[in-house]
């Protein structure tokens, strides 16, 4: 391809966008809107996924020891727990710590404890964290066989519900993102089809004077890529603004909510949108052009 021809393509793309200003504006806005919706969804899905992972990691087993268990029994029980497959962390909670924790939770109502007198009803316990929460149900029976262990508890129903919820979040999110990406491709290819249709006369004249298909295709491809790129940049700007605003709101009201940090998350997200916007633009114009090149 000669320099002359490259100049021609760029000139043609520029003129085409300028000539069809309104159309180009409409196309870019449509692309920006579609990608913004796609981006918002991705943002939600990725955060939901992150939240699911966070919640899963919070699941732990509480192992309550028998009241009679003391000294050596506790040490060997702790050792046995640490050796169980999948266990990553074991921390002990003594009877007095348990009482303290309970007092803290009661807050202003700690007077209630006076009814207990000097008795400490809390058992010695271990908090056990595992590498994969899916394992919990499997290893609990083993834990209960360790000498000195009274019982091992985990929120069985809570955990199972949560797994269900996170599975739905992940699969549903993926399906929705794919659906939106396809919808975006369809919208862009349709918009470009209108641009190509408006210029079908030009395309047919190009065919009559002996232009090759690739020669005809290039300016349209560039135009589609330009529209996809510009739309994606606009969508990204809005998306970043929206995320930062949301983040601010959440930090001030729901501080414990594990929202993903803006960097590098937003960087990857905008990069992804810009690359897919450009590719979708190119794919959209190729799809639309196929029909018009058969002259």
């Amino acid at each position, binding site marked *: 391809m*000669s320099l*002359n*021809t490259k100049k*021609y393509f760029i000139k043609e793309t520029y003129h085409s966008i300028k*000539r069809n200003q309104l159309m180009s504006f409409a196309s870019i806005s449509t692309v920006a809107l579609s990608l913004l919706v796609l981006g918002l969804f991705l943002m939600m899905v990725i955060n939901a996924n992150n939240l699911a992972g966070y919640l899963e990691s919070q699941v732990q087993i509480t192992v309550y020891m028998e009241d009679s268990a003391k000294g050596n029994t506790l040490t060997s029980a702790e050792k046995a727990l640490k050796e169980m497959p999948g266990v990553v962390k074991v921390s002990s909670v003594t009877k007095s710590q348990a009482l303290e924790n309970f007092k803290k939770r009661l807050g202003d109502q700690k007077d209630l404890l006076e009814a207990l007198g000097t008795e400490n009803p809390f058992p010695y316990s271990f908090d056990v964290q595992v590498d994969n929460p899916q394992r919990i149900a499997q290893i609990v029976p083993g834990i209960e066989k360790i000498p000195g262990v009274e019982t091992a508890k985990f929120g069985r129903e809570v955990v199972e519900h949560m797994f269900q919820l996170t599975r739905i979040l992940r699969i549903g999110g993926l399906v929705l993102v794919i659906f939106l990406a396809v919808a975006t491709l369809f919208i862009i290819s349709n918009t470009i089809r209108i641009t190509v249709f408006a210029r079908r*006369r*030009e395309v*047919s*004249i*190009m*065919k*009559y*004077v*002996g*232009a*090759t*298909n690739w*020669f*005809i295709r290039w300016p349209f491809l560039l135009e589609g890529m330009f529209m996809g790129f510009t739309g994606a940049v606009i969508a990204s700007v809005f998306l970043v603004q929206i995320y930062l605003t949301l983040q601010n709101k959440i930090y001030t009201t729901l501080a414990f909510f594990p929202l993903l940090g803006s960097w590098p998350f937003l960087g990857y997200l905008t990069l992804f949108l810009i690359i897919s916007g450009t590719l979708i633009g190119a794919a959209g114009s190729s799809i639309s052009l196929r029909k018009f090149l058969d*002259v």
Partner: protein
Amino acid sequence: MLTMTGISKTYQSGATALRNIDIHIKPGEFVFVVGPSGAGKSTFIKLLFREIEPTTGKIFVDGVDVMSLKPNEIPYLRRQLGIIFQDYRLLNDRTVYENVAFAMEVIEAPMEKIKKRVPEVLELVGLRSRADNYPGELSGGEQQRVAIARAIVNDPLLVIADEPTGNLDPETSMEIMKIFSHINDNGTTIIMATHDKTMVDFMQKRVIAIEDGYIVRDDLKGVYGYEPEH
């Protein structure tokens, strides 16, 4: 220059437009193709630049078997042809100069060559002073001259014109025909489908008459031979 042997064309609808056509046209000839509407003239013209394909038979343009060309070779066939339509088919958002230069740009001619050649052909069709006008600012005859300039700017071997004077008054048609005559004098072969009785009778060139898909006449110094339809 052009040889057709055993050409037939039946459309998918079942309509037969051409039946067993044999034609040989020598380089430098000026040939009119005449006949009633729907006789097969347009089909004949469209076969030449492979807009459509024949059902049977072979077509050779300058020794090249047109039917054996792969789709990506068709553009190179068309670069040797200059095609002119009744409705001019100009780009209305480009100037006269740009419309003509367009035909050179799309075959990737160097810029210096375009700058030199376009004014030459505009001069030839008498539109040098109209270079910066848009088609909408020109008369029908002038628009057709732009189309002719575009068709010949790449020095085609063969100019194919489909009813080039169909939308023009007799006086303007005569001017257009003079330009074709001039191009033909420079050695370019011309094939023209027409309904223009006055012109055909005046020019005294080879006339091929097609009726109902058959060649019914082929005279070296022919006449139109039909009553004018309009």
